[in-house]
C-alpha cells in the first residue's frame, strides 16, 4: 500500500503504519505526536487534495 502510493508520487514519510495494542495508549500518543511533527515538517501535500472546481 505504502509502496504504490510512494511510487505514484506521494512523498515518503506521509504514510505510516504502526502496530499498537488497544492497551498501549502511551505508545499511540507518542507515535501520533512523532508522525504529526514529521508530516508537518514536510509541509502540506496539495497535489492530492481535491479542491472545489473553479467557476469561470
Amino acid at each position: 500500500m505504502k509502496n504504490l502510493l510512494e511510487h505514484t508520487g506521494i512523498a515518503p514519510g506521509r504514510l505510516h503504519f504502526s502496530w499498537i495494542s488497544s492497551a498501549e495508549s502511551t505508545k499511540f500518543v507518542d507515535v501520533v505526536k512523532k508522525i504529526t511533527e514529521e508530516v508537518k515538517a514536510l509541509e502540506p501535500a496539495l497535489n492530492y487534495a481535491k479542491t472545489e472546481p473553479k467557476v469561470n
Partner: protein
Amino acid sequence: MTGYTEKIREIAARLLTEGKVDRVIGFRKGTVPMMNQPHYVTSPAMAVELIWDSHCGLNLANYVTDSKERIGIVAKGCDSRNLVTHIIENKIKRDQLVIIGVPCTGMVDRNKVCARVEGEITSVEETDDAITVSGNGFSKTIAKTDVLRENCAVCTHRNPVIHDEMVGEPVAEQTGVDAYASVKKVEALSPEEKWNYFEDLISTCIRCYACRNACPLCYCPTCFVDESRPQWVGKSQDPIDVRTFHLLRAYHCAGRCTDCGACETACPMGIKVREFTKKLNKDCFELYGWEAGLTLDKRPPLDVYKTDDPDDFIR
C-alpha cells in the same frame, strides 16, 4: 502458431459433440483489422467460427466468472493463470472447465502497429513471427517481436499453467527479460517527478472503466466507484478522482494480477494502466516471491498470515 486455429476448432467440436461442455469460449474474427471478438460456440457446427492469431489479447477468464455451466475455454498462458486465480477465489470450479491450452508467443499491440505506418490499415496477414499490414498504397511487414504488447514482451509464462487439452507443443519461455524495467525507471524518479509521470499517464482517462471491466479480477457486484453510500470517489473528471480510481483499482488487484494486459488492450485511450499494477506485482514478487495464478496449491500472500511476513514498513 500455425495450425492453432484448426486444432482449436477440432477440440471445440469434439468437446461439444461428446457433450463434455455446454459451450466453448474462444475468439472469432473481428470486423476491423487486428481486432478479434470473444465468442461462445454451443454446437459442433459453430466450431468453425473460432480462430486464433496474434490479436487475441483480451483475457477470456473474464467470461467464466460465476458461471454455472460446463465450459470449454481457450486459454493462453495468462488466461490460464487467471483461471487458476478464479478457481482459488471460488469464481468457478475446476471440474466445470475444460481448458484448451494455447502456447503463446505474445499478442500484438495494435497501437504500436498503427504507429509504424502512415495511413489506415485495412488488412493484416501473419506468419509465425511477422505480420504484414497493408492499406491504401502501402504494405509493410513487421517482426512480431517489435510490436508485442508490453506485457507480452516481458512475459515468462507463455505456456498455460493448467490445461486439459493443448493445441500445440509448448513454446520456449523467455529468459533474461526484465519484467519490471518500466517500474524501475519510475522508482528512480523524485516524488514530484513520479507524481507528474502518473498525472500525464492518466491525463486522457475518460473513466469508461474498460480497464476494470476487461479485467477478470474485477468481478465485485458493486465496484467501489459505483457505491453511493458511502460514495468513496467523485464521478467527475477531477484529476484527483481519476487518480483515486486508478490507484484503488490497482490495489484491488494486488497479489492477484497476472499481468495479462487486458486492461491496456481494452483502454480506448491507450493509457498504460499496467504501470499501476506492475509496481504491486513487483512488490509481491520481491516480498513474497509470489507471481499470481501459477498454482492451485498455494494461497496468495495477501490471503495468509505468516510470522515471518516482511514488516519493515511498520514502525
